[in-house]
């Protein structure tokens, strides 16, 4: 047994060397952590200074938020509950009509935005685009469409198309094109290129490659993103209504401007309930779409 040990050159103190190196590694990590922590604290302080955070004003103002919340709900007595609710929702026909308008606005914007954004996403995917310049240009256009806020687009479109749902639809559509284009492009980049090679080997052109090789792989993710976008667009349609672009957001804004806070509260409850319903539906639909994909593999 001794000669076997002598044949292998033994390096003395291996365990000790490991301990030293590990201690050095830990020390370096601690220094980085301290530096990062200090920088993070500095960012918080800088942000507080930049936004003129005043903790005293926050503490003093906090009770006032309940004032506003109280104004949103009129006095409702349990004895006359049905009557009081009827009074609170006195204009429910108009509001339900506006809600339908809002949902249709969101639907149309999602459809138009997904179609155009989906088409552009094939040029914005690194592995699918044929010229780098096209890829770069489409990516920048999508970014502009996405980062300009919805409200800004809505204001621009109101100048051109007047107050009403059309401006809101166009604003949400432009934003959806940007968002869907980016998300779809990332899905495209994650798709396997093997089927593309197969279609190319069978003699297909670029369009056939996309249609028969890429599209079947990416459709479940597309559907999931589209349902999610529909849900987000309902919220956007509400916000865009604030600047007059139609739907129930316009009713909400008008009632706040006229200081009819009870009306505003009623509309807010409608909006929140709708968003909750759509959220639950959308989650079920999305998971069923993704579920099919994961079983397909």
């Amino acid at each position, binding site marked *: 047994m001794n000669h076997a040990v002598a044949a292998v050159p033994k390096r003395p103190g291996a365990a000790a060397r490991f301990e030293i190196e590990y201690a050095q590694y830990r020390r370096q990590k601690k220094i980085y952590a301290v530096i990062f922590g200090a920088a993070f604290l500095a*960012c*918080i302080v*800088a*942000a*507080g200074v*930049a*936004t003129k*955070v005043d903790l005293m004003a926050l503490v003093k103002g906090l009770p006032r938020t309940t004032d506003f919340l109280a104004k949103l709900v009129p006095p409702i007595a349990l004895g006359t509950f049905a009557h009081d609710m009827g009074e609170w929702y006195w204009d429910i026909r108009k509001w339900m009509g506006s809600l339908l308008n809002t949902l*249709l*606005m969101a*639907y*149309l914007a999602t*459809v*138009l935005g997904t179609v155009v954004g989906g088409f552009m996403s094939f040029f914005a995917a690194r592995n699918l685009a044929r010229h780098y310049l096209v890829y770069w240009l489409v990516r920048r256009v999508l970014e502009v469409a996405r980062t300009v806020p919805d409200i800004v687009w809505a204001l*621009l*479109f109101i*100048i*051109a*198309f*007047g107050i*009403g*749902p*059309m401006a809101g*639809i166009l604003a949400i559509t432009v934003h959806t094109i940007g968002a869907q284009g980016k998300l779809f492009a990332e899905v495209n980049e994650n798709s396997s290129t093997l089927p593309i090679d197969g279609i190319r*080997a*069978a*003699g297909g*052109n670029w369009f056939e490659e996309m249609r028969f090789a890429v599209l079947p792989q990416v459709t479940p993710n597309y559907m999931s993103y589209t349902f999610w976008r529909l849900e987000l667009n309902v919220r956007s349609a509400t916000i865009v209504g604030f600047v007059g672009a139609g739907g129930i957001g316009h009713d909400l804004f008008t009632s706040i401007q006229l200081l009819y806070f009870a009306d505003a509260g009623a509309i807010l409850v409608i909006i929140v309930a709708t968003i909750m319903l759509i959220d639950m539906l959308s989650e079920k639909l999305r998971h069923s779409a993704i579920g099919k994909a994961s079983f397909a593999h």
Partner: protein
Amino acid sequence: MTTLKVRRDSITEADIAAERGRFPQMFSAPLVDRIGAWLAWSMPVALTLYCLYRFGFISGDFLHGVSKFAAVVVGQLFPPKGFEQLPLFLTVMGETIAMAFLGTLLGAVIAFPLSFF
């Protein structure tokens, strides 16, 4: 685009027709499925067309608005002017980023314990 010429010495047209007879669903979807797919797709398309009509996209007003957009909005947005106010813009840009940073931080801090429930 060059067409790929495949030498089909071992597979004849008769072979392909025989396979088509044995496994028709490998070559095209059955008619029932295709009709079902058309019906299923026609509903969202019909809803889209109805929305386009309802919100006034199929009218002269829309085209008028497009030309107005090109003239007024695009014409007045470019070339960008007002760069003498750049310091002010940068200050409020910093304020915006600070707002986003603090809002995200506070939101994450409050949401983190909530996420366990």
